[in-house]
């Protein structure tokens, strides 16, 4: 297990490095940082001097190594637009996004997994159909539209919930609900198919043959095996959630990094964009890592496969 974990961590670092190279190259190729920095009214001379002063004329690999060196020391450059260090900018806002993401994920899982289990216990029953209908409808809803409809309904027509801001937990109810709806369908359907497969398996019959209580058979023997694919997909869903948070934070005016991503893209704020892409990638990589480790713990066969490969 330790070997497997170390291997996974090493792989994750490798992926993070690759992602950083790619984003750095792509962003630097598609925008001229000096132009962005100098502003709309700058003369050619000004742009030229900025290019030289900041080393934008240096070869790309050289620039990347410098950027990486600084990044590792916690210096991600200075935002062209906000004129503050990117690190400070992000650290002031990340907690909102992380909380939003984690709480939405937790709410999504806490609703979707039990629904999936209920649907699987009595396949094709009325409960199963209700759950499937919910999943399909939720999947079909574009989250920006769903968010706007909620605002119209719960903030305008019936003013129950605030439509923007981050002052109290009440402000988070609608955003969390919208994001949770985004991750629920896949998790629910996967729990359902996973449970159906596992409940039909020989080892569940063995567990029943031992005379174990139904809840023991269901939650100890079945669910543990059924959630392995759910865990993997949850990490992918977290990715959906992060991209979703860009839209949701903008709609609900939550000043997290999702909103920052929107702002920096609109302003062509290269260092901030670069840092955010890297940040989102790292969150995604960490989520995948956690999912892999959780699965190795859930299913011992995965650990063996990991070492053999």
């Amino acid at each position, binding site marked *: 297990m330790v070997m497997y974990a170390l291997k996974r961590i090493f792989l994750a670092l490798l992926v993070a490095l690759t992602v950083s190279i790619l984003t750095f190259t792509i962003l630097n190729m598609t925008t001229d940082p000096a132009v962005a920095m100098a502003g709309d009214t700058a003369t050619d001379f000004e742009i030229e001097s900025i290019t030289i002063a900041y080393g934008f004329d240096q070869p790309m690999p050289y620039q990347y190594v410098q950027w990486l060196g600084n990044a590792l020391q916690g210096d991600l450059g200075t935002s062209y637009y906000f004129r503050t260090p990117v690190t400070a900018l992000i650290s002031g806002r990340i907690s909102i996004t992380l909380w939003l993401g984690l709480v939405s994920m937790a709410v999504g899982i806490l609703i979707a997994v039990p629904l999936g289990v209920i649907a699987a216990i009595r396949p094709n029953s009325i409960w199963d159909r209700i759950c499937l209908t919910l999943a399909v409808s939720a999947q079909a809803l574009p989250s920006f539209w769903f968010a706007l409809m909620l605002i119209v309904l719960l903030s305008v027509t019936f003013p129950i919930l605030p439509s923007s801001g981050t002052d109290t937990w009440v402000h988070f109810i609608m955003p969390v609900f919208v994001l949770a709806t985004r991750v629920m369908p896949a998790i629910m359907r996967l729990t359902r198919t996973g449970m159906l497969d596992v409940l039909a*398996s020989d080892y569940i*019959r063995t567990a029943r*043959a*031992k*005379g174990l209580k139904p809840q023991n058979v269901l939650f100890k*023997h079945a669910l*543990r095996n059924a959630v392995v694919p759910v865990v993997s997909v949850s990490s992918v869903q977290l990715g959906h959630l992060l991209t979703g948070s860009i839209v949701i934070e903008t709609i609900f005016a939550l000043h997290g990094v999702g909103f920052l991503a929107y702002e920096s893209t609109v302003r062509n704020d290269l260092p901030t964009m670069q840092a955010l892409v890297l940040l989102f990638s790292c969150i995604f990589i960490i989520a995948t890592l956690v999912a892999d480790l959780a699965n190795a713990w859930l299913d011992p*066969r995965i650990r063996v496969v990991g070492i053999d490969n």
Partner: protein
Amino acid sequence: MKPLDCLEIKNLTVTFPLSAGTLWAVNDVSFTLARGETLGIVGESGCGKSMTAMAIMNLLPQAAQLQATGLTFNGQELTALNESEMSDIRGNRMAMIFQEPMTSLNPAFTVGAQLMEAILRHRKVKKSEARERALYLLEKVGITAAASRLRQYPHELSGGLRQRVMIAMALMCSPDLIIADEPTTALDVTIQAQILHLLTEIQREFEMTVIMITHDLGVVANVTDRVAVMYAGRIVETGLVSQLFESPQHPYTQKLLDCIPVPGKTKRGSYLGSIPGRVPSLIGDLSGCSFANRCSFCTDECLNNDPPWHQIGSQRGYLCWRNPEQISPYKGQGVSL
């Protein structure tokens, strides 16, 4: 039911309602097992052996429907029990060894945890005592280095070892009845013999009642006291092993015996092991003898009406239109036991 009887089954029928009609997986099966007795249930694939076993354990698939005038175990009527009362008996007073050792253990838990679970469920024992019992039984079923096996996961064990673990698991609560459903079918030939030998030894040592399900008459000859031959959901003949091998009454039993190779008599290269024709469909109206399409003695009566049961003494019986007088002595290959 005599007080010494362990299990009595009366008119057990298991059906599946399918869109094409009713599938009669087990059709009016009755038998009695005395305490300490070993019964072999023999028959080809799909004849309802497993479903009979599952009906006794109350582990039938959800779609299955069970009917019986009696399923009595240790004097208790099983059909009157609810699921919770039944689960108190399962794994405790009766246990089962399955046909599929490779997939019958949960991949997520250690062998030790899965072994101990049954006794922790049914007895007030400490974990350490459960562990002791698991160790003792693993050694009993011939597993070396038992202590380290307890910490292993199923995928680290071979099929033969897994089946030994399953046997040990079935023994955890010293059940009165063990149902072994083709315990060796999925294993290598050499391992098969070992596992059968083990089961025989254990049956003697723990004085258990055993139902041994198999499609191999050879297994029956070596391991069991009595045999019930099943065909298309019905028991077509029962008797002591010696009676059945010496004077099989039902044409199906006779043909089954003809399929067993006999050293010195069966010619090398001669065609073995199959009865011409196919098992009829089990779906819909099944009147008449189900063996009729493969039977060389078939008459119009056989085709139109259900054959009667002939009881010969207390232990023997067969399901056929032919009277005992009509049946010429079996002159098959003369299988000797």
